[in-house]
C-alpha cells in the first residue's frame, strides 16, 4: 500500500497502480477518453492531465500513465489543470462535427459529458474543419464515421488485445489519421466486434442494428443474462421505456429488443460480450407459439392443461426431456413437482449453428445453453444414443423447450410439449402449452463456473401463455399421480 494525496485528501494505492486507477478506487473520476480499465494505456487523448505538487515546482503529466509514488500530491482540479482540459477539449472538438442532433451516440457520449464538464464553450476556431469519410462500412455490423472519430485507439487496442483479430489499424498521419480495417483480416469474422461500439467514447462506431433506430433516452436497460452459451455473460437488454410507448408505429416495437450491451461482471465476462448476445432478438423474436393446442387443434390454456393432466394420469411410463434453458427456479420447480413422476433427462436445447464460433479462450464456450450446469445437478444428461432414454413401453414424453430428439421418441408415446416457438415439430405434440421466454420473466442461471446470475423481466407476457415454473405447480397439484405413489 502506498499513501498519497488526491486534492489534499489522503488515499492509498496498491503497488503498480497508476494515478487514474488509484483515484478511481478512491472515488475520484479523472476524465479520460483513450484510457479503458481493461485495455493497455496509450496516453494519447491527454485529457487526464493532472498536476503534481513537488518541491522543485509543480509538474504535469497524464494520470493514466503515472505510477503512484509515496507521498505524491496530485491535484485533479487545479486552475492550471482546468485550463489544460479546456485546451484539450478545444483540440478534440476542433475537427469533430459536433452533430449530436443526428448522432446515435448522443445521450451516452463521453465527448458530450466531458464537453459540458470541462469545456462548455464553442470552438475558438474560425477555419473549416477537416473532412473525412462518413459511414465507412467496417463490417456487416459496424459503420465508422471518421469525422466523429477522436483517434483514441480503443477499438484498435480491443481488436489487438482482447478479441485478438488484429482487424483494425490506423492509416495516414496527423489530422488525416483514419481508423481502417486490416486488409488481410475480415472484421466480420471477429465474433467480439460489437464491443468496439460500446467502448467508442464518441459516435464514430455505429451499430448498424441501432443506427437511426432509436434514441437511447427512450430506451431502458434491463439486466439480464445471455443464454447464448454456458458462459452466461451479464448483459443489459435495451428496450423501449413504457412511458415512451410508440402508438403510431408498429406496436411490436414496444416489446422488441433494441440492443444488447454487456453488463460489467468481472467474475463472468468482464466488460465484454460476444456478437451472439447482440443478436438475442434473433433468438427471442423468432415466430412464437402463442396458441395452446390439443391434438393440433387450438384450445384454451386451461383445456390444454387439463388434457396434459389427463395424459400424465393415464401414463405408466413417462419420460421428461428437461430444458437446459430453464432457469434455476423452473428446474427446481420441476424437480420438486413432476420430477418424481418422470424419468428425466437434460437435453441440449441449442447446438452450435453452422458458421458459429464453437469455443475460444476469450468468452465463447462450446455448450450453447445457459443452464445445463444447474440442470445436470438435478437430472442426468440425455445419452448420446437418445433412443436408449426411451424404454419400449414409454407411453408419455414431456418435452420442455427446443432441441428434442424427435426421431428417437417412440411413435406410440403421447407427447406434451412446452415450447415458446412455432416450429414444424410442434405438430408431433398431443398437447402443446406455450411458455414464456427469458425476456418475459425473472430468474437465475448458473453458468459453467457455478456462478449464479439473475435476469429480469423486460416485457409483459403475451397472454395466454404459461410460465414453466407455475405450470409445473399446476400440473402437479391437478394430477392424481404424485411422487412416490407411482
Amino acid at each position, binding site marked *: 500500500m502506498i499513501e498519497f494525496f488526491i486534492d489534499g485528501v489522503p488515499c492509498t494505492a496498491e503497488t503498480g497502480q497508476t494515478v487514474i486507477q488509484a483515484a478511481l478506487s478512491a472515488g475520484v473520476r479523472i476524465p479520460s477518453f483513450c484510457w479503458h480499465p481493461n485495455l493497455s494505456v496509450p496516453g494519447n487523448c491527454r485529457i487526464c492531465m493532472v498536476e503534481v505538487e513537488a518541491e522543485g515546482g509543480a509538474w504535469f503529466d497524464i494520470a493514466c500513465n503515472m505510477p503512484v509514488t509515496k507521498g505524491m500530491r496530485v491535484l485533479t482540479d487545479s486552475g492550471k489543470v482546468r485550463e489544460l482540459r479546456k*485546451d484539450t477539449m478545444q483540440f478534440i472538438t476542433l*475537427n469533430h462535427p459536433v452533430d449530436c442532433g443526428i448522432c446515435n451516440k448522443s445521450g451516452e457520449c463521453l465527448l458530450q459529458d466531458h464537453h459540458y464538464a470541462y469545456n462548455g464553450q464553442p470552438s*475558438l*476556431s474560425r*477555419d473549416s474543419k477537416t473532412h473525412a469519410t462518413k459511414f465507412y462500412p467496417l463490417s456487416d455490423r459496424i459503420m465508422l464515421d471518421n469525422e466523429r472519430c477522436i483517434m483514441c485507439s480503443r477499438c484498435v487496442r480491443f481488436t489487438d488485445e482482447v478479441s485478438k483479430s488484429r482487424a483494425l489499424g490506423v492509416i495516414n498521419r496527423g489530422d488525416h*489519421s483514419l481508423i481502417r480495417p486490416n486488409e488481410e483480416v475480415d472484421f466480420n469474422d471477429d465474433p467480439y466486434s460489437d464491443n468496439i461500439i460500446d467502448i467508442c467514447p464518441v459516435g464514430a462506431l455505429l451499430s448498424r442494428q441501432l443506427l437511426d433506430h432509436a434514441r437511447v433516452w427512450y430506451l431502458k436497460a434491463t439486466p439480464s443474462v445471455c443464454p447464448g452459451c454456458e458462459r452466461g455473460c451479464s448483459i443489459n437488454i435495451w428496450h423501449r421505456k413504457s412511458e415512451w410507448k410508440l402508438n403510431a408505429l408498429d406496436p411490436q416495437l414496444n416489446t422488441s429488443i433494441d440492443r444488447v450491451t454487456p453488463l460489467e461482471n468481472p467474475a463472468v465476462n468482464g466488460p465484454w460480450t460476444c456478437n451472439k448476445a447482440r443478436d438475442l432478438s434473433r433468438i427471442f423474436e423468432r415466430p412464437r407459439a402463442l396458441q395452446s393446442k390439443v391434438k393440433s387443434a387450438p384450445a384454451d390454456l386451461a383445456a390444454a392443461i387439463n388434457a396434459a393432466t389427463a395424459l400424465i394420469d393415464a401414463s405408466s411410463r413417462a419420460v421428461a426431456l428437461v430444458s437446459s434453458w430453464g432457469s434455476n427456479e423452473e428446474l427446481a420447480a420441476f424437480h420438486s413437482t413432476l420430477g418424481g413422476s418422470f424419468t428425466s433427462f437434460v437435453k441440449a436445447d441449442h447446438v452450435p449453428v453452422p458458421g458459429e464460433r464453437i469455443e475460444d479462450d476469450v468468452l465463447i464456450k462450446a455448450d450453447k445453453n445457459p443452464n445445463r450446469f444447474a440442470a445436470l445437478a438435478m437430472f442426468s444428461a440425455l445419452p448420446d444414443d437418445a433412443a436408449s432414454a426411451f424404454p419400449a413401453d414409454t407411453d408419455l414424453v414431456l418435452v420442455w423447450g427446443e432441441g428434442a430428439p424427435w426421431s428417437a421418441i417412440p411413435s406410440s408415446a403421447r407427447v406434451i410439449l412446452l415450447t415458446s416457438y412455432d416450429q414444424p415439430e410442434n405438430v408431433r405434440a398431443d398437447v402443446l402449452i406455450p411458455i414464456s421466454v427469458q425476456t418475459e420473466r425473472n430468474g437465475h442461471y448458473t453458468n459453467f463456473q457455478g456462478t449464479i446470475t439473475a435476469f429480469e423481466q423486460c416485457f409483459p407476457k403475451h397472454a395466454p401463455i404459461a410460465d414453466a415454473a407455475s405450470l409445473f405447480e399446476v400440473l402437479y397439484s391437478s394430477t392424481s399421480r404424485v411422487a412416490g405413489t407411482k
Partner: protein
Amino acid sequence: MSNRITTGGQKLFMTFDITPTSHSLAEYKARGGYSALRKALTEMKPEQVTKEVLASGLLGHGGAAFLAGRKWGVVKLNDGQPHYLCMNADEGEPGTFKDRWFLENTPHLLLESMLIGSYALQGRHSFIYIRGEFDLAYRRMADALEEAYAAGLFGENILGTDFACDLVIYRGAGSYVCGEASAMLTSLEGKKGYPRNRPPRLTVAGLYQKPTVVNNVETLANVPYIVTHGAEGFRKVGTAESPGTQVISVSGHINTPGVYELEYGYPFADFLANECGGMLNGSELKCVVPGGISTKVLTKDDIMPLRMDHHSFVAAGSQLGSQGMIVVAEGTCMVRLLQVMLRFYHHESCGQCTPCREGMGWLERISNRLVAGQGRPEDIDRLYQISRANDGTTICGLGDAAGYATVGILDKYRNEFDYFIEHKKSMFGGRLEVAGIGDNARLVDAAVA
C-alpha cells in the same frame, strides 16, 4: 563535397581530404581507424568505457544535449537481459544535414563507434536507423558494413576477443517523428512510428521492451576519439561546459552553405564571416534559426555577440539543438517563414496524441489565412494559445517544438504579423529569398508587384 579550410578551431572529424575512396576501410584504417576499438576491447572493461564517456562530458548532438555517458550508465550490465544500442541516423530536422556528412564520408568511424558502444553496453545486436531519403548515405553504410564483416569486425570473436556483435541497418520510411527515439524503436519493431509515453524510459524498456540506448550519429562518432585520447584529452577541446566539437550544417542567405566542424565556443560572428562566407549578396543579417526549426529564432542582436556553445545559446533563450543553422537575411517575410515551418509540422505530426494532431493543423490553417491576407487580430492570440497548449502536454517533443518555433517568431517579429493583418499584405512582399537573386525571387517580386 570537399572540406573547406576553416578557422573553427581543432577538428576531430574533418581531418582528412575527401576523395572518391576516403570512405573505404583501407583508408580509414590507414588514418588509424579501428585502433580505438582494439584499445577498448583489449585494455578496457565495458564499464570503464562508459565511465570514460561520462567523464569526457560528451553531450548528445541530436538536439537535447543530454550527457551521453549518463544515458549509458542507466543500463545495468550483467542483468541477464539483452541490451540494444541504436544509432539515430533519421536526420530529418529542417535545416539539419550534418549527420549525412558522417554517414557518407566516414561510415567506418560510425561502425567503430557502434562496436565500442555495443561493447560498453553489452549489446549483442545493434541497429542503425537511417533516414529513408538518404540514398548515398545508406549505400555507403551498407558497403562499409559488408567490408567490416568481411574483415571480421562484426560477428563472433571480434579482433580475437570473445566480444560478439551484429549490426542491422534499417531504412526509415520518411517520417520525421521516427527521429524521436521511442518512435524510432516502435518503427524498428515494425509498427507505425508512434512515440511512446514515459515512463518507462527507453533505457529501462526500449526496443522489444529491453534496455536500449539511442544515440545520435555525431554523438557516437565522438566515442572512438574519447577512447583513444581519454576523457582528459577530449576535454582539451571545446569549452568546460561543452567539450569537444560540433559539426554544424548551415544554410540560408549566406555565400557558402555547408557542413563545418567547429570547436565549441567559436564566436558566431567569426563563423558567419569565415565559414559561411558572409551574407548572400551583401544582404544584412535579420535573424538565425540556430538549431533546426524547432529552436527559437535569434535576432541579429541576440546572436552576433554569442559564442557557439550550449551555455551561451541557452542563456540567449534558444538552443544549439540539432546544429542545423538557417541564416535569414533582412527583407525576408517572417509570416511566410512561419507558415512554411507550420506546414512542415502539420505534415509530420504523427496524429497519435490530441494537442499535436489537432493543433498542428490548426496552426497551419491560421498561418495560411494570415498569408492569404485574411488574418484577424485574435489569430495572434490563438497562435500563442495553441503553442502554449502544446507545451509539455504531448507524448513527444514535436508539439512543443512547433510551439517554440511559433512563439519564437511571434515574440520577436510581432510587428510583421500585425502589419500583415492590418494591411492584408506582407511587410516584405512575402519574400523568403534575398531580393534580386534567382528566378524564384523574380517571380515573387513580380507576384508582389
